[in-house]
């Protein structure tokens, strides 16, 4: 195995969530190798990272490996149960209602799922947070107008947007990204605004202001680093939300449409077979849950690892950590 060599490279290509958190890590003074050693100390975080890398790799190169396996139908071979090698490795996760390999479809679906969820979250996070921090820092009319715009977007039925996009354009992954990103912007906007409004009256921001720092510099140097952990936690949760929203759209018949396939669509299409072929909806559901949990665990870890006030926790041996109540040693 050449894992030590390939892993960092793979992580870079990964469309998965850990890209953004690690971007933040670079901003602080921590060195990356240091962070990597810290990661290995935390079993859960390590497992999550490995899982995410695997899922990410699958999404990137998997579809090419599967070839036409994901679309090759065999009506006489429909709904074969999983966990049997009798029909070859392709059918180890069973076959779907048209006799296609579940494994291959899960792999191909992972790419669609990520190419919807990742851009949707990234766009909403970037736009919503910057806007919110800006609005919260300046307060006054900027804040008011921004919040009213957020209200407008929030009270606007996203389902209608989805139908409009479906009707006027075609139901492509790109359009679904657009809808999901647009409708999720207010979430970040409101949170960032609230945090930043609170921060802008704090002493250290005041101090920076009296020293004559420009608003954008203060926002960039003092406000964003403090707000970011909350926003990133939110973003990892949103990552899961977006996958689920995409699947709900499929359930309502206005999401990703066949022949495209995503995990959400698979769960939605498989629901009618729950009693006769449970694996059709359980496997993609498990894929969503596993990805989400891994992303969240890693994000939670990163949040601690990149926070100087919290980092010591990770450096401790596990046993002592559990017994310990974080009391007086808190801050260096």
């Amino acid at each position, binding site marked *: 195995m050449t894992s030590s060599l390939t892993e960092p490279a793979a992580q870079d290509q990964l469309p998965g969530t850990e890209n953004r958190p690690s971007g933040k890590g670079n901003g602080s003074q921590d060195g990356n190798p240091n962070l990597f050693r810290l990661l290995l100390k935390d079993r859960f975080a390590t497992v999550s990272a490995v899982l995410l890398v695997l899922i990410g790799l699958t999404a990137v190169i998997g579809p090419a490996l599967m070839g036409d396996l994901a679309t090759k*139908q065999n009506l*006489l071979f429909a709904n074969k149960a999983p966990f049997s090698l009798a029909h070859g490795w392709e059918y180890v996760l069973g076959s779907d*209602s048209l006799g296609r390999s579940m494994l291959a479809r899960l792999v191909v679906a992972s790419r669609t799922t990520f190419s919807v969820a990742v851009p949707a979250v990234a766009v909403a996070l970037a736009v919503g947070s910057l806007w919110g921090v800006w609005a919260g820092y300046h307060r006054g009319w900027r804040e008011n107008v921004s919040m009213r715009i957020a209200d407008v977007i929030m009270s606007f039925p996203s389902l209608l947007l989805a139908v409009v996009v*479906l009707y006027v354009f075609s139901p492509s992954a790109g359009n679904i990204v657009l809808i999901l990103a647009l409708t999720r912007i207010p979430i970040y906007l409101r949170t960032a605004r609230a945090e930043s409004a609170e921060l802008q009256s704090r002493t250290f921001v005041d101090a920076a202001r009296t020293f004559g720092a420009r608003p954008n510099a203060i926002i960039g140097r003092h406000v964003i680093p403090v707000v970011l952990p909350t926003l990133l936690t939110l973003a990892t949760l949103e990552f899961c939300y977006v996958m689920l929203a995409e699947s709900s759209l499929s359930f309502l018949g206005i999401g990703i*449409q066949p*022949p495209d396939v995503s995990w959400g669509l698979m769960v939605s*299409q498989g629901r009618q077979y729950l009693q006769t072929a449970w694996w059709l909806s359980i496997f993609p559901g498990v894929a969503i849950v596993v990805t989400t949990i891994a992303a969240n665990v890693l994000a939670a870890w990163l949040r601690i690892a990149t926070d100087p006030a919290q980092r010591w926790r990770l450096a401790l041996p596990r046993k002592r950590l559990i017994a310990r109540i974080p009391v007086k040693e808190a801050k260096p």
Partner: protein
Amino acid sequence: MTSSSRVLSPAAVLKWPALAAGALLLLSGCSVANSASAPATAGGSLRVVLAQEPPTLEACESNLTSTGVVVRSNVTEPLIERNPTTGALEPLLATEWKATSDTEWTFKLREGVKFQDGTPFNAEAAAFTIDRAVNSKLGCNVEGYVFGDADLKVKAVDATTLTVTSPKPDPILPLRLSFLEIVPTTTSTTAKVREPVGTGPYKIEKWDAGQKITLSSWDGYWGKKPAYAKAEYQWRSESSVRAAMVTSGETDVALGLSPDDNVGDLAVDYPNNETVALRLEATKAPLTDIRVRQAVNYAIDKGGIVNSLYQGKHKVAAQLVPEGIVGHNSTLEAWPFDLDKAKSLVAAAKADGVDTSAQISLVVRNAQFPKVTELAQVLQEQLSQAGLNVKLKMLETSQQLTYQVRPFAEDEGAVALLIQHGNQAGDAAFTVDQYMLSTGAQSYFGTPEFDAKIKAADAASGEARKKSFEEVFAYQNDKLVQFAHISHQTGILGKSKSVNYTPNSSSGDELRVSEMTPAS
């Protein structure tokens, strides 16, 4: 300004959301919570779960499946009724009828019938109903569905005699009239009525919008009193939930189940008169060439689809109407599944300069019937195998309709539209005029010769009518090939053991509660 004096107690922090939520609860009243119904027991009351709430119970829209299934033959009744099994017309509110001239029919009406509001049923009421549905500005759905633009002249000769005159000779006028549910003259002529009054065995007791409709048996009914005193309708859009309700005993009858809902021996199959087919847009390459259209027919493995997707319950189709419809041609055989032949036909067309690589859009309506998504993907795969360039487009209803009816939506290439056609009327004219005339609202093309054949069949009656329509179907398969037929569908109805009922081809459009009896 010390911090401690301004501290909110934790209870106060928690109180806010709780208070707000409590206030919301109060504000919103208890319209949902207090609707708890007494557990319905069999014998007195029959519980039915439908796929959707009827938009209205207006009698002149009862040709809509979701309305008709509640109203027809339960609340209101027509003059004449078509027996769904034999196809014969049977007397109901009219006891006899005959053609008294080329364009005029005379109906003898039943005596001693009253409406649920106490007014008598007579020729005046019948004439009123026809006028209201067909000749008014109400825009009744049944008008467009059964009568088109033609206005009818109606006359109440005396209390029990009615004459109806059509602008053109109409041999199936009585059949058309079987779609008109008779309402009393007290019914509004300026607005549609959500809760109609009729002559049927049940009257509408209560409609809890969004939740359920209750019908109760009406004492003044002219015919036999039905076995169930009440009928309660609810609706769930997920078929698995409807299946769950009949399994758990929360309902007695569940409509529209899917073969995978797995209700075991509670499932009752019945032919539902629906036919699934591809309609081919022969005015655009590559479907312009008849060989390509034939290839489409050869490439579809109808037997495989029926057996694998529909557990052998559907029947492979050779024409747009199933058995039991006047004009069904029982000698027609379905196109065999022959991929090699399909490939060679495509190759031959290509050799003659047809652009067989041009894209064909396979347009399919989302959730139109059970497993439509699976079927669509199978079709895409099988047509691609034959060497055609097929792109699957799953659309929602409104958008799909722009492809289904004239003026047809423009697409980047030729369209192969998946249609599900149900002939509720029992006569091939309702299919052929629509789908095969060169100007038909749902037809891509035709030929003058074929149009003439169809017109002749429309004007014929009796045995000649049957024969002419049979020829029409044969001719389309032979010379036009606008359609690639797939299957005649089978409906699945969930029925609890406590109910005796045998569904028939019209059960989905007209569920006659009076035909149901409690078991033992």
